[in-house]
């Protein structure tokens, strides 16, 4: 690791920061005190001008060892008394910071040397306020332009402009440093992007230009005596022009075999996602293509419900509006997405597939920021507001207007009543660094989807939908997080969340499902560094809450032959009940750094109150750094997932079910080809056991733990990080996922996709233009053919007769998505217009088969046709 800490003190004297300089006048009667913040009253007396003191010699304080190890930073407010000789005669601490900072700051400040304050030309004693800042940065101390009064022979002038549109950039901090370090100055560009340094000693200088939203710029310049060196610096927008956070995140050592991270610079720029960040997960290896419009996450051959989406560590049940249209959280709020396709840490539980963790970004603490986004589907507004120092608030709101389009598509007499489809969501987050050790974050978010159509008469060919279709989903959550650095070796995270969820689904007069739930979630985690090589992590997590449901409709079909697992049975069922689920867990993990080997040993114990079952999941992962560029890795572990709630309801399920279990094995290697390019190869095997499956012919008790499964495959991934003009992914997955129910023969899994090839790239063309494409080539999903049908006379409809389970497969899927964006930068705001074209060459991909009323004739049901989405985004 690079040198970790360098302490700097940023001198506040004579800098733009507020500073007080007060001469100590031995003759107060004749010489009024000077205070930079005081306003003279009446006409100024004819008095000699007072010149404040200037720091000539800065002394760097020692960074307190314990504070450095704990990663603490601080600011110590000092009051320094300077004698007429320029030496420090007294120093007092005005605002202590503790942790050894005060003593070190005092010690250093005593050795400062100043050019004394002057009244006219006469040196006088003075007293100043001085903020000694301890920061963990690798930046050399700076001097302001004013203070650099050393004899100079040359000067430099320049202009800073945008590389794309050549517009001047104001308030760029330009720092010039002589290569031997003896001179260092800074200034800011004016509103025309101009800057100037005077009286520079001859020599070679390092010049750096820094401003938010642009990549830092550096150049070496030669300054010659009696010459003016003129330069134009063209700054390039940072890879993500909307990345406002200045927080550098250093990923902690891995606690799992594979973590694939998509960071903020990539989240909204991948073609085919409509700028939707969560959809970007679909370009990663191991993720199967979900059926069109479903938004399902199918990871390494697992069922969609086997993978847990988390938002800021909080389990969420639905990532997308209307199942897959767009994600429920504003993209500007997000910082990164971590995807764990298997063998994840014991921190995560209750799932046997994978984990997708969506991370929110820190609010902007420095300035106001807003984004308005309008496209053909919805409109959203995002605001980022600093409140006080180290405290900011982010708020986002979005509403769809598909309802307006929908209503114009259908005549009024088509439906008796129609509402929606409408979705909306909101997120509000406040974050505060309450101290150097503590950070608090409060968040509230919610989402709603609603769709309702009522028919007076049955619709066209579907007599089952007599009465209409309606579904709604409404959720609200509040979430509080407290991160504390308790000591140099102990970190503590505490999270609490509560929320409600209400789901209603009605299908004609046949089905009515209502589900209400209060969700309570808590987590406490402690990370203790026992030594340089050993870290121990312990944690508790709890998922709990009361709920109630009512169900009216046909008995769920437990068709053994791969038929729909939906409410299509023959017997009407009416159920209602309330319940309380209580799922506590405790986990312990030790990270052993035995360089070049790193081992993570973990154990998790879960309890499921409705099953009255404990689960014990030991897990191990190992990384071996073969060379600095090549890492070998492997993992093994057990994973437990409780049955879904309705599966333990006696009338339709089995209250005596046990949890589903899975064994994950994986091994692979990672190769960092160059700084921006990495390759990965990983093989995996999953053995699923005690899986919940239906009984033969759906006899009581309907469900049993008699299913097993096996999933195996190889994933190849190449990634180009977004450090330059280009970033992209190339991934290929070769896999097989199979299931066996009871003593039946093996059958491929519903979403088994042996070949998944995804290539995605985004290129910054310049002058505000950016273009990207994503191409996918994926095996078709298997399906169970219908080999006949019976006329069900009671209901005047036909019942399908299924063939062998998943014995047929849909056609190969292929699709190309394109994205083009043009960004204009104006004074203080930006405007972007983007075009996202999904299925650019209009491939007719098979999503399934649709049958005639008696299942004799079928027609391929194709998915998304070419879909261009045009949008406009404004930002201040």
């Amino acid at each position, binding site marked *: 690791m690079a040198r970790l800490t360098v302490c700097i003190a940023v001198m506040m004297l004579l800098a733009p920061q507020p500073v007080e300089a007060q001469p100590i006048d031995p003759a107060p009667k004749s010489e009024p005190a000077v205070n930079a913040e005081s306003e003279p009253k009446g006409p100024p007396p004819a008095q000699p001008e007072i010149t404040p003191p200037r720091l000539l010699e800065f002394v760097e304080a020692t960074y307190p060892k314990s504070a450095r190890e704990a990663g603490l930073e601080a600011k110590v407010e000092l009051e320094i008394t300077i004698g007429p000789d320029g030496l420090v005669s007294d120093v007092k601490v005005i605002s202590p910071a503790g942790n050894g900072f005060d003593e070190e700051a005092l010690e250093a400040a005593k050795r400062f040397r100043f050019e004394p304050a002057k009244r006219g030309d006469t040196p006088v004693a003075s007293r100043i306020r001085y903020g000694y800042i301890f920061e963990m940065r690798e930046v050399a101390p700076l001097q302001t332009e004013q203070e650099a009064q050393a004899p100079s022979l040359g000067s430099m002038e320049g202009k800073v402009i945008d590389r794309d549109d050549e517009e001047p950039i104001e308030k760029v901090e330009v720092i010039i440093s002589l290569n031997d370090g003896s001179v260092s100055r800074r200034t800011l560009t004016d509103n025309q992007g101009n800057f100037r340094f005077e009286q520079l000693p001859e020599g070679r200088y390092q010049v750096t230009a820094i401003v938010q939203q642009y990549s830092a710029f550096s150049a070496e310049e030669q300054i010659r005596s009696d010459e003016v060196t003129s330069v134009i610096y063209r700054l390039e927008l940072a890879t993500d022009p909307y990345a406002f956070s200045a927080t550098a995140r250093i990923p902690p050592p891995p606690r799992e075999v594979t973590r694939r991270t998509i960071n903020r610079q990539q989240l909204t720029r991948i073609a085919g996602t409509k700028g939707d960040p969560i959809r970007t997960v679909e370009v990663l290896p191991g993720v199967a293509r979900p059926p069109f419009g479903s938004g399902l996450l199918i990871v390494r051959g697992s069922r969609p419900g086997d993978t847990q989406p988390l938002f800021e560590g909080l389990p969420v049940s639905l990532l997308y509006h209307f199942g897959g249209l767009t994600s429920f959280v504003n993209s500007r709020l997000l910082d990164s997405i971590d995807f764990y396709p298997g063998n994840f840490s014991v921190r995560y539980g209750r799932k046997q597939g994978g984990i997708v963790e969506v991370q929110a970004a820190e609010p902007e603490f420095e300035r106001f920021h807003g984004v308005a986004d309008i496209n053909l589907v919805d409109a959203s507004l995002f605001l980022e507001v600093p409140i006080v120092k180290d405290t900011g608030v982010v708020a986002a709101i979005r509403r769809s207007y598909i309802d307006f389009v929908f209503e114009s598509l259908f005549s009024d007499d088509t439906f008796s009543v129609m509402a929606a489809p409408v979705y909306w969501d909101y997120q509000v987050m406040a974050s505060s660094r309450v101290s150097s050790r503590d950070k608090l974050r409060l968040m509230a978010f919610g989402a709603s989807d609603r769709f309702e159509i009522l028919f007076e008469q049955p619709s066209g060919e579907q007599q089952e939908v007599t009465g209409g279709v309606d579904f709604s989903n409404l959720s609200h959550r509040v979430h509080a997080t407290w991160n504390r650095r308790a000591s140099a070796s102990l970190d503590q995270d505490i999270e609490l969340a509560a929320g409600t969820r209400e789901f209603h689904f009605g299908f004609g007069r046949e089905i009515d499902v209502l589900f209400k739930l209060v969700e309570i979630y808590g987590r406490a985690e402690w990370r203790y560094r026992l030594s340089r090589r050993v870290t121990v992590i312990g944690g508790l997590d709890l998922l709990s809450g009361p709920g109630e449901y009512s169900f009216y409709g046909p008995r769920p079909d437990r*068709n053994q032959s791969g038929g729909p697992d939906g409410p299509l049975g023959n017997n009407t069922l009416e159920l209602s009940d309330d319940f309380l689920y209580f799922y506590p867990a405790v986990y312990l993990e030790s990270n052993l750094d035995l360089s070049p080997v790193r081992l993570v040993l973990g154990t998790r114990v879960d309890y499921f109150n409705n099953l009255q079952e404990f689960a014990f999941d030991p897990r191990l992962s190992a990384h071996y750094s073969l060379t600095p560029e090549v890492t070998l890795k492997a993992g093994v572990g057990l994973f437990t997932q409780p049955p879904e709630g309705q599966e333990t309801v006696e009338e339709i399920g089995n209250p005596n079910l046990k949890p589903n279990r899975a064994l994950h094995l994986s091994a692979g290697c990672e190769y960092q080809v160059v700084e921006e390019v990495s390759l990965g190869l990983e093989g995996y095997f999953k053995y699923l056991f005690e899986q919940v499956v239906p009984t033969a012919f759906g006899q009581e008790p309907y469900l049993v733990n008699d299913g097993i499964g096996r999933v195996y495959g190889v994933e190849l991934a190449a990634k180009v990080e977004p450090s330059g003009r280009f970033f992209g992914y190339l991934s290929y997955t070769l896999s097989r996922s199979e299931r066996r129910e009871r003593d039946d023969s093996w059958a491929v899994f519903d979403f088994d996709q042996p070949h998944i090839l995804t290539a995605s790239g985004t290129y910054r063309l310049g002058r505000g233009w950016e273009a990207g494409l994503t191409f996918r080539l994926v095996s078709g999903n298997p399906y169970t053919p219908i080999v006949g049908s019976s006329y069900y006379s009671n209901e005047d409809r036909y019942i399908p007769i299924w063939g062998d389970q998943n014995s047929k497969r849909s056609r190969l899927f292929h699709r190309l998505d394109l994205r083009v964006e043009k960004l204009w930068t104006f004074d203080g705001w930006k405007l972007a217009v983007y075009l996202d074209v999904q299925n650019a060459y209009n491939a007719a991909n098979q999503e399934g088969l649709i049958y005639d009323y008696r299942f004799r004739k079928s027609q391929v049901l194709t998915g998304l046709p070419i879909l261009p989405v045009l949008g406009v985004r404004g930002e201040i």
Partner: protein
Amino acid sequence: MISRVFAVVAAAFFICIFTACDIDLPRVSEITDTRVLGTRIELPEDPSLVWPIPGESARISWKVVFPALGASTDTLESMFIVCTPAPVSVTTPLCLEFFSLMDKRKGAQQDLSQLIGVERLTCADLEQAKRERPELLEALPIDFLCVEGEPSYEIEIPEDPAQDELLILGILCDKGKAFVDITRTAFFGCELKKGGQEIPVVFYVPLQDEDDPPNHHPRLDNAEFRINGRAWPQVLETDLLKYLLDGDSNDERFDCLRAVDERAVLGVAAENQVFSLLIEYDSLEEYRVRGERQSEELTIAHYATSGKLNRDSSIIRSEWEVLGFDLEWEPPEEIPKNGLLTRVFFTVRDGRGGFDSAMRAFCVTR
């Protein structure tokens, strides 16, 4: 599951939005081949009653229609079994008696052919077995019933049924021989001749509970049918045949204009027609579910031998002021010079086993 249901509904919705315009499959309301439209239960003492009484008999009649006028049920051969429905939660109904044929340890089916010595049993085989080896059939837990011609037969209701309903599984073979083969997923099949057709069928027979008042069939015989406001009287197929089959040549054979002239059927122009149906209030019975009074909701399915109906079924609810509905019919593009006879079939179900049917006809002229 909720997430999945939500996702499936959403996916279906968006697929429909994007692709519905491409779907071109046969519609249930178009009668293009032999079809079963429903099943009527009749009790010997009172044919208006629906629910058979345990220990007594009931007549089961399958309503079969053909696309061609004059086609008869003589070409049909059917095979049925009447059994106790198994308490299963799969869409394919199963007989409880089947489970006695299974090895429960393995959950696998034991081959019926081992019991009866052959893999496939036709009606003729069963008849022969009944005569020559009756003990073989007696070993089977289910009785097979073969019917030639019109599929209408009597069944005996057990004195003490295991469930509150019976299950009838079977097959109707038009121009073919029915057989049973337990190795087939469909269980039944037909040895079809050219142009033949097989129709596997399922019907649950609800049984009279002594605590419940009896249920009556809904009625269409006293319903009012109209075309574009004109009264639309019932006509018998035999009357239609009388007028239509009098011609000497094939070209004149289906001269429905003649039927119009004789006032046997209505004549209508080849343009969209509005059918209206009004039923009597007494067709909607009241009943109680767990002490709560409810009224029947009638489902009326409609079928036409030509043209297109704007929907395949309609409903009638008791709370409506007018117990009826309108339905739009679109004529086919090609109309023969002698007119196009179109028969329209209506069936009504009360959702509790009650069933009735009616037919109307009209002649479309150019």
